[in-house]
């Protein structure tokens, strides 16, 4: 084997422990911030519902390393997300991509809110219409009475 390759190998051996990936950081640069932004969108696959930025698992550290290396090589954040998607599937993203059946998840709550709101509105309007005006006044609770009395006193 050629000398340079051996040398390169020896160097890579030194760089194998996980901290090595992080040790190169001195202070946060634009790169670090980019790494963080991407890392926060990716799930640590061996942890449960934790992103690779927050996780302390070795795999998460290595994934952060991959993100950093690829950014350095000039890959765009989109490319990097694509890469992880192609390796791990949708599971790797911290949120389901908004396509296909997933629209049910994304739009579901708002559909419920709008649909429920409309139904409730119609129902309430119906109740109001059916209520004879002025309605029979039931006894007002005590604290309310006190308040009304006070208000009357004040106005008089």
């Amino acid at each position: 084997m050629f000398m340079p390759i051996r040398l390169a190998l020896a160097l890579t051996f030194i760089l194998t422990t996980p901290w090595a990936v992080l040790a190169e950081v001195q202070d946060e640069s634009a790169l670090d911030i980019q790494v963080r932004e991407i890392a926060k969108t990716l799930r640590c696959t061996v942890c449960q519902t934790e992103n690779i930025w927050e996780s302390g698992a070795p795999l998460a550290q290595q994934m952060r390393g991959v993100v950093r290396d690829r950014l350095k090589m000039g890959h765009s954040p989109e490319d990097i997300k694509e890469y992880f998607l192609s390796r791990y599937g949708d599971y790797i993203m911290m949120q389901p991509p908004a396509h296909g059946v997933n629209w049910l998840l994304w739009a579901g709550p708002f559909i419920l809110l709008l649909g429920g709101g409309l139904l409730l509105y119609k129902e309430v309007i119906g109740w109001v219409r059916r209520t004879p005006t002025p309605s029979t006044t039931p006894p007002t609770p005590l604290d309310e009475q006190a308040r009304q009395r006070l208000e009357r006193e004040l106005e008089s």
Partner: protein
Amino acid sequence: MIIEIGHFSTIIALVLSVFGMASAALALKTRNPDWARSGRMAVTLIFVLLGIGMLALVYSFIVRDFSVLYVANNSNSNLPFFYTVSAVWGGHEGSLLLWVFILSVFSTLAVWLHWRTQPTIMPYLIGVECAIIFGFLCLIVFLSSPFERLLPIPLEGKDLNPLLQDPAMVMHPPMLYMGYVGFSIPFSFAMAALFSGRLGEEWIKVTQRWTTFAWMCLTTGILLGGYWAYYELGWGGYWGWDPVENASFMPWLVGTAYLHSVLVQEKRKMFKVWNLFLIIVTFSLSLIGTFLVRSGVLTSVHSFATDPERGLYILIFVGTIIGIAFGALILRSAKLKSQVELDSLISRESIFLFNNLFFLVAAATVFLGTLYPLILETFGGGKVTVGPPYYNAVFMPIALGLLFLMGIGPYIPWRKASVENLRKSFSIPLLAGAIMVALLAITGIRNLYALAGSYVVAFSGMAIVMDFSKVSQLYAQRNSSNIFKGCLAAFTANQRRYAAMLTHIGVLVLVIGIIASTIYQTEKVVSMKVGDEMSIGDYRMKLTNIHDVEGGNWKAEEGVFQVYEDETLLTELRPQKRIYNATQTPTTESAIYSINMGHIFLTMPEVSPEGVAVARGVLNPLILWVWGGGIIMGLGVILNILRPRKREE
């Protein structure tokens, strides 16, 4: 020997729960009060026997009896004494025992407290409580007993999960369970109302304090869980939308809807079926939460055993309770004619309905997000993650809507509000919101959520202030006293209302804390050697030393960081990277310095053999408002519960 006594007591308690159900049934059938009395005796004895069971387990933990399998799995001879007691609920089996023990305490209290005033309800209450106790005791006795022996006896225990060796974790599970279980009392009264057909306001008035108490416990439990996650998990956040967290949040959301909606029934005698529905959903969600956490259907950071058999049993049990409850509701409601009287869309009644809608949609959102991966997988759609980004995008708008309604509901009159009313009550709050947004925009805040959140908070806050100051003034004028005495008079005269307002203020404070500490969080990860400095925000942190420290059952590398603001030394922070001896589990212990109501939060997740430390600094502005808001909420609830009884109650 001691543990066998505990085991035996638990088995007897199981038998007694059957007896309790039978006496309840007989009491209803024969109308003979003696049967109810023997049911009461059964409930009381169950409490005593389960107490013995708990004590036996606590004792085994204290003497570190590793011949007990559960103790061997969750303790160790070096585990500090403080945690040996909390280790009782550090695992699956013990948590279940704690759950059912708390249930027996509440049942006994409820039976004795309401014995005289609610004689007709008692058989139902005893029956329902005994049925729930029976279900959980079967699970404990037959499928997950903490009283099993282990042979051969190990010399050493496996140790309690290091993440659980934390003061917040001592209190978190009991509080949470008190919340879940507390809702079983209004649930039982609701079931009594359904079975007996006495659907008046009686059961709601009787259980109002129970509901409030359960709600307070659940809130405290959730907040404690957040607090624990904040400084123990070491990533500087307190809420991760993890399935286990969600499982406790869902009953909270529906329980809160219930808490508000019963007010309408109390005052206007409407929405009877709706309130029954809400309390059944609340308690069902408590049970489903237990199922989700205990069966391993969902994975999460906190996930416990995956055991289909156990899961199947819990599912059958939970399904039976929920099925009976909803079945009774459906059958009864078919006979009930709805008698809703509403004078106007613009009234407190109708705002409460919309409040309920928002709470239910919020709960449904959490439910959908939690179960979506399971749904998708069941239909062969692959595996996905539903994480915080989803909830931040979808849940937040709903939460803002709720906060806005919070500023309207309490200040709009019952029955009908005139335009004049609305103008008087809400023009100033609306203006306050606008001024707040303008001020923040001037100071350079551009984040949409932050602006929308501040608008809503200012609006709702101002509405509270306006209402209270108006009423206080009235009282001050009437009594010709000063305004402070007026405030006090107003508060004591309407303690229920203004205690609730105090809770609302707590919510607003909490929300400000959440907005500030999530949107304006600054974080930085830097590798440092001794002598290096990192700067974060206005602060500089200088690593002056890394040394080894040792605790009772752990060893750690501790970094000493001097924190400077300009040239002033503020404090020394000492984050640790711990390894617990027994399990060799690493944990990162955060170091926190409070400043300006916020935190400087520092962890040291990694130290290389060459002495290069990875330091992670987080600035969490106004984080103390999150916890402070929680405390104010709790204070409000306590004042609510301790209010003097009024004649109409």
